[in-house]
């Protein structure tokens, strides 16, 4: 019911945007900018680049507003645009990796500070997510961070539902393996966690 109403709000705003209503466009930006940043920011790690990609995503939405198909979900559309732009950025970055490393050689002190391991599990998880392979990271972010349904994730990534479930499960397994030593070290199996597990089940 809530999902349906969200969809209706998106469609109403989109129709207004198609007529050139900039107030509606601003409302749409406010609805999606944080969600997009949460996903794209974790994919790119660089805050400035992620912000540029989010901005570019909204510009693309505005440019192609007339070609939006109301048969589909707006959230699926905007996430698809954002993820495609982020993937392109990662591809570019991979191409120019050599230059980035050479730029970083002068700041050894800063690197030493940054290399310090985070103490809390959420920070560890954040780093572990960034190290995941792209397809698992995208699936995990959309499902577990953005809490989208499997169907929506399948729509955004344009892969079958079973593939999405498999990727999410695989990503959780990889993250669990990475966080396991730290969890044990910090006595993660404390009463609070056990209580959380028992409440989940």
């Amino acid at each position, binding site marked *: 019911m809530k999902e349906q109403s969200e969809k209706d709000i998106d469609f109403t705003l989109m129709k207004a945007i198609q007529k050139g209503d*900039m107030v509606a*466009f*601003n409302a749409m*930006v*406010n609805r999606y*900018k*944080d969600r997009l*940043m*949460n996903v794209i*920011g*974790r994919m790119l790690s660089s*805050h400035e680049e*992620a*912000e540029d990609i*989010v*901005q570019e995503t*909204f*510009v693309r939405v*505005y*440019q192609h507003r007339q070609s939006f198909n109301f048969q589909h979900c707006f959230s699926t559309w905007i996430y698809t645009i954002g993820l495609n732009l982020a993937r392109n950025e990662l591809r570019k970055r991979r191409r120019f990796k050599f230059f980035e490393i050479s730029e970083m050689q002068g700041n050894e002190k800063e690197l030493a500070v940054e290399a310090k391991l985070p103490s809390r*599990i*959420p*920070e*560890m*998880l*954040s780093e572990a997510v960034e190290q995941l392979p792209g397809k698992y990271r995208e699936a995990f972010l959309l499902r*577990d*961070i953005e809490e989208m349904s499997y169907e929506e994730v399948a729509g955004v990534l344009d892969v079958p539902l079973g593939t999405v479930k498999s990727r*999410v*499960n695989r990503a*959780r*397994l990889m*993250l*669990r393996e990475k*966080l*396991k030593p730290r*969890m044990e070290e910090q006595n*993660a*199996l404390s009463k609070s*966690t*056990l209580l*959380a*597990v028992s409440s*989940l*089940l």
Partner: protein
Amino acid sequence: MHCRKVRSLLSAACSDELDSRQQAVVKDHLASCPSCRKEASYYGSLRLAAQELPKRTLSEDFNTRLLNRIAQERFHETRTRAYLPRRAPRLTWRTLAPVLVTACLALVMVGNFLGGDKLFTPNAPTSTLPTSMDDRYLTAQPGNNPNLAVGLHQDWSLRQQLARAERLEQISRGLANQYGFGNLHLTSGTMTAGSINPTMSPFFLRQQPVYRVYRLNGNSDGRGGSQAY
């Protein structure tokens, strides 16, 4: 249910993605299996950590920068795209037919205007220029003109010309004998009646001869100055 089967479901169970029957089975198993419960706790803490992940936030002037960018985009749109078609027009018979029909009608109207009523009148002459010219000059012969027909002969065969030349010689001789005139020379250019050779091409004979009569000044033998008249 075996531990292996339960552990494959633990990730989904901790995210509440199983149906109620599977969820109950997993819960029963965890109540009796400490190792699987430990495994489940990892997934539980992972889920809690995911929920506690710090949110990535945008800078405060994000909206302002974005709207500036959109304003530029709108300016660009009004300067270029508004005046251009969305896509190149397709040339099909359906689109071309009205254009062709209109063009044909326009041609007919212009032609009718320039050509007047004659253009589509069945028996109208196709041109205002005269059909027959006065080409009588092509067939005009001196023979047709009585003023020019003096001394002309119809028969210009070689034999007749020689006969005429002989007759003129006789006349000339007779006149000379009777009135003391000199020789009457038949001339046609450089040709004289006396120089006519029967083997000569008849082309030269097809010229109108010029008759000149010379009268001797006092001499009957034809020598001395002569005067043509």
